[in-house]
């Protein structure tokens, strides 16, 4: 059984003995500017930081409260997105061309919409005088300006990332394996559980990370729909905004809190890379 060895050998050695197609010199300049645009602000952030103030800023009760609220709400929002998004992605991936185009446009809309508009739209639907708001109020349910509202706002802005990522993955995998599974006698649910889901695993993982990151950074819709109450709806982005506007806190606190979000984001990316390494091929 020697057939397997060349596969493993070439997987890592693709660069050896092969000349890389050269990048035209003219294009290196815009590329360098591009990376500078992305990286320099973060470098500046680090340089501006008063390191002596960092321990106090990040361990302050307000910061800890905001971070734990952010992680909790983003986590719950991500779980909601997975529960709603994977089935939605499947429906889009299996729909006819027209239906899929319509559904995909609907899903993409919150992505291209300014989050502030999303917040206003959520108020219009669930606010005190909103479309469903009044009926909810009769039932004694009040959503705006609660922690639940934070989660709803995050789901609204983050769900498209998950759906688009998973749906793309499903399209790439195609339906041929599912057809084989059905031919072997598996029910549609078994096919979904044992074939579709594992096969789109990498797409789900990538979508989950994007979704969580987007939920964590969500500001606009949250600010309008959930407000800015410490301990209830003041997530990290809102805490940073509050600190930056100097409501009794210094700008340094805002920078230190921002650094925490950067650290969390990097940690998420690293975790994803770690998973990807040993993810099934």
């Amino acid at each position: 059984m020697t057939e397997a060895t060349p596969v493993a050998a070439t997987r890592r050695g693709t660069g050896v003995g092969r000349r890389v197609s050269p990048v035209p010199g003219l294009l290196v300049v815009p590329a360098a500017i591009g990376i500078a645009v992305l990286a320099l602000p973060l470098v500046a952030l680090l340089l501006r930081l008063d390191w002596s103030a960092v321990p106090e800023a990040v361990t302050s009760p307000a910061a800890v409260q905001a971070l734990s609220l952010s992680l909790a709400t983003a986590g719950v929002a991500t779980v909601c997105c997975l529960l709603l998004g994977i089935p939605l992605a499947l429906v889009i991936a299996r729909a006819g061309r027209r239906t899929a185009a319509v559904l995909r446009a609907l899903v993409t809309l919150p992505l291209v919409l300014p989050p502030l508009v999303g917040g206003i739209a959520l108020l219009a639907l669930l606010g005190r005088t909103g479309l469903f708001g009044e009926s909810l109020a009769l039932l004694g349910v009040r959503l705006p300006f609660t922690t639940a509202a934070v989660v709803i706002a995050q789901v609204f802005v983050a769900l498209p990332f998950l759906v688009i990522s998973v749906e793309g993955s499903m399209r790439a995998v195609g339906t041929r394996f599912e057809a084989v599974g059905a031919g072997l006698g598996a029910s549609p649910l078994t096919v979904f559980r044992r074939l579709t889901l594992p096969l789109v695993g990498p797409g789900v993982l990538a979508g989950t990370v994007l979704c969580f990151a987007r939920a964590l950074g969500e500001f606009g819709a949250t600010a309008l729909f959930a407000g800015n109450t410490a301990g209830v709806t003041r997530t990290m982005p809102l805490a940073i905004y509050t600190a930056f506007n100097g409501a009794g806190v210094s700008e340094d606190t805002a920078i230190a809190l921002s650094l925490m979000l950067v650290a969390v984001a990097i940690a998420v990316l690293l975790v994803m890379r770690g998973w990807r390494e040993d993810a099934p091929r």
Partner: protein
Amino acid sequence: MTGVEASGALVAEFASERGAFRVEASLRVERGELLAVLGPNGSGKSTLLATIAGHLAPTEGVVRLGDRELARRDGGAGATIDLPVAERRVGLLGQESLLFRHLDVLENVAFGPRAQGRGRSAARLDAMTWLERVGAAELSRRRPAELSGGQQQRVAIARTLAARPELLLLDEPFAALDVPTAATMRRLIGELCAQTATPTILVTHDPLDAIVLAQRAAILHDGRIAQLGPVAEVLGHPATPFVAALAGVNLATGVATGSGGVAVSGADGSLLRLVPSEHVGDGGRPLGPAAAGAPASAVFSPAAVHVSPLGEAGAAASDSMMANRWIGTVSLLQPAPGGVRLTTEEHPGLAVDLPGAAAVALELRPGARLAFIVAAAEISVREHA
């Protein structure tokens, strides 16, 4: 033995449409029988299989397996049956093995038994037995990506059979394999089909598959079954140029002469009379005097033609009315295994093969005029239905 007991014969009598393309089929495959379906690309082979497998509903007709109706659609208000793929117990194996890449080999094969409700360990035991039967037991813990093409196809066969299909559909399963691997796989499929007695349809481009594996062959052309019969008859006396090309034989169509031969018109208006010797070849039927004037055809191998220079044979143009002989102008030369294949302007549909040495001796070139003599013993003739 953990053999699969196939429940009964396949009866497929249906019409099926994919876009504007319509396929009409009427065939029956018995228990323990393997039917080869041959046809050019776009002849409807995949539509035929898709309808039987349940990926496509017939527009009318019925697909029955033993006493179970897999699909039925009567014209008008009649009852419609369209059993889901998962409930048909029809195993489909294609050119690509399509192993589940996130599962190892054993779990791939155990998928069918588990999906059908067996416990994990029972399913694995079953899977291991099937892997042993296809000679892939030592691969059980490998991932599909670590297998060669032949190994993958071996595992795919085990996986298909482990689901205990009552009908097996093989869609060019050897097409992606190299020649020695394909030969091994062909033998394996033959053995397994014989052991399990599962009725099997094998769609293929390769007449060798039909010759080695099948009892009967069906030729699909433009969505219709153009010919159906024992393999020797179908390949030995093809009804269409496609089958003739597939079987590597020449098919000359013309009219029966009344003296047991077939008269074939050449492009130049000359007449070639093809008369078999007393012995009638495979699939041929003697043409009696009563057949005179009826459409008929003659079949012979490109290698059954002897080529000689005009002068040497002492041939005058008038001799061309002799049976089994024509004077031709070489129009096309191309390489053939072991020599050269040529066609003539007079009969562009008839290929002539000759060994390389003979081709050199004859100084073959386009435009050369030569005498062509077909060995009478290798001609088989038949009246057209």
